[in-house]
C-alpha cells in the first residue's frame, strides 16, 4: 500500500487534490481512498488529507502515520506543523516552492505550483488553485498515470485551464 499525506491550508484545495489523486489512481485500475482530516477550523488553517493506493481493497480508516510521500502545498505550514512526522526513511517529499529545497535529507522535489496556477489564471476568491497543477507533478513522479490525471480532472472540472495547469506542472517538474 502506498500512503500519501497532503499538507495545505483550508481553501487551497488540498482536500480536492486528495480526491483527484484517488480518482486518478482508481482510473489506473487501483484501489484508492482519500480522506481529509477535518479539524473544526475555518479558511486558512493548516489541514491534512490522506490518500492510500493499493492493489487490494483498503480497509484502513485511521490516519496515515508513516507515509511514503508527503506533499506540501503551502510551505508556510512547515512553521507550525512537522510535515515530515513519520515519513518513511526511503520516503519522498513534494513541495510547492519557487526554488529547489532540501527537506530533512529526504528525496525532495520542488515545483512552483503557485506560479503555474497564476499563469493559467486559476484563481478563486483571490487564492491560486493548486489542486489540479499538483496532480501533474504527481504524474511526473509516477504515482499515477498522466492519462488518468487528465481524465480525473476533466471528470471533476469542466474548466480546461485545470488540465492545462496539470500538463504544465508535468512538463516543469524535474525528476
Amino acid at each position, binding site marked *: 500500500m502506498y500512503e500519501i499525506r497532503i499538507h495545505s491550508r483550508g481553501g487551497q484545495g488540498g482536500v480536492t487534490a486528495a*480526491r483527484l489523486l*484517488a480518482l486518478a489512481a482508481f482510473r489506473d485500475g487501483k484501489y*484508492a481512498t482519500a480522506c481529509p482530516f477535518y479539524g473544526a477550523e475555518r479558511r486558512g488553517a493548516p489541514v491534512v488529507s490522506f490518500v492510500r493506493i493499493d492493489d487490494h481493497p483498503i*480497509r*484502513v*480508516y*485511521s490516519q496515515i*502515520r508513516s507515509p511514503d510521500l508527503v506533499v506540501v502545498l503551502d510551505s508556510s505550514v512547515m512553521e507550525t506543523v512537522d510535515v515530515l512526522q513519520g515519513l518513511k526513511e526511503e520516503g519522498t517529499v513534494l513541495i510547492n516552492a519557487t526554488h529547489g529545497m532540501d527537506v530533512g535529507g529526504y528525496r525532495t522535489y520542488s515545483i512552483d505550483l503557485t506560479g503555474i496556477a497564476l499563469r493559467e489564471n486559476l484563481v478563486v476568491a483571490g487564492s491560486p488553485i493548486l489542486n489540479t497543477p499538483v496532480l501533474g507533478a504527481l504524474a511526473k513522479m509516477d504515482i499515477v498515470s498522466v492519462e488518468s490525471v487528465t481524465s480525473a480532472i476533466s471528470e471533476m472540472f469542466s474548466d480546461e485551464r485545470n488540465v492545462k495547469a496539470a500538463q504544465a506542472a508535468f512538463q516543469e517538474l524535474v525528476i
Partner: protein
Amino acid sequence: MLTIATGNKAVAAAIKEIRPDVVAAYPITPQTEIVEQIAEYVTSGELDSRYIPVESEHSAMAACIGASVTGARSFTATSSHGLFYMHEMVNWAAGGRLPIVMANVNRALGPGWNVWAEHTDSLQERDTGWLQVYVSTVQEAYDATLMAFRIAEHHDVLLPVMINLDGFTLSHIMQSLETVELGDFVPPINLPYAIDTASPRGYGTLTGPNDYFRFRWDMERSMRDSVAVIRETEDEFARRFGRSYGFTEDYHCDDADVVVVSMGTIGKEAEVAVDQLRREGMKAGSMRLRWLRPFPDLDLSGRDVVVIDRDYSFGFGGVLAQSLKAKCGVDPFSVIAGLGGQEVTYDDIASFVRDRRIGEEHWFGVSD
C-alpha cells in the same frame, strides 16, 4: 457505473436512484454534503423530488411524516444534535407506522461541541421502533440506502429505517462506488391507510390503554417479521446486483477462538487487526454487526468475545457489550473506544485482543 464517491455522496446517489416524492432535510456537520447534493440534483432537474429546506430537524421529520401519511415516499438525513432535536418526531414516525428512510451520520453529542464520529446518537434512538443498520464502506452506504426503502415499505414491516454511517471517517472518505440501475427492485410505494378524502379516518387519535397496548405489540411483531424481510431483500439484492450482505459481516469467525464484535468503520479496521493477529498465530475473527434493530441472534458461544463500543450508556456500560451479554449470554471484554472521533487503529484493536480481560470494561486511552 463504477465511480468514486464519499459516503455522503453515495447516500445522495442512492436517493437519486430511488426518487422519493419528498425530501425534507436540514444541514448539520458531517451530514451537510447529503443535503447539498440532493439540493443540487433537484436544482439541475436530475431528481424530481419536492425538496423542503426546513428550518429545523424537528420540522424535517415532521415534514417527512406529513408527506408519508399521504402515501408518498419521503427521505431525510441528519446527525447527532439534529437527531436529538427531532427525537419527538422520530418516535412519531415509527408509532405512525410510516416507512420513512433516514440517513444518520454518526457524530458525538455536546457539550463540548464535537463533530466527529460516535454511535451514541443513533443508539439513543434504539427504542423508538426504527430499524437500524450500520454501514462501513461507501458502497455499503449506497446499497443499504436502496434496500432500506424496500424493507421499510414492505407490508410486513411498515416501520421507518435508519442507515448509520460514521461521521467523517465514512461520510467524507472517497472510495469506489458501483451505482446500479434499480429497475423494479423497489416496488412503487403502496401505503395502506394513506390519507384519502374518499375514506376519511382519524390518525393518531386519543387511544385508550388496551388499544394503545395492542398497537405497541403490533410494532414489535412487525419488528420481528422484519428479520425475514431483511433477509429476503438482501438475498434479492445479491441476486440482482452481485453484492451480498447479512445481519453481520463475519471475517474468519468460523474457527476463531476470539472474536472482535463492533459496528461501522471500526469493524473494517478490525479485519486488518485480525490479519495481523493471525500472522502472529492467534485464531482471531471479526464480526461486524450491521443490523442493530432488529437485533439478530448471534452465535458467539465457546469463544472469547472482545466488544468495541463507540458509545456509552452512563451507569450501565457499552450498549453493544451489554446487548451481547443479555442476548447471547456472553461475558465479553468490553472496550469503550472512539468516542468523539478518537482514533482507533488496527494496532490498537489487535492490542485489545491480545490484552483482553474477559468480563471487564476498559476505556481506551483513559482508564488504567
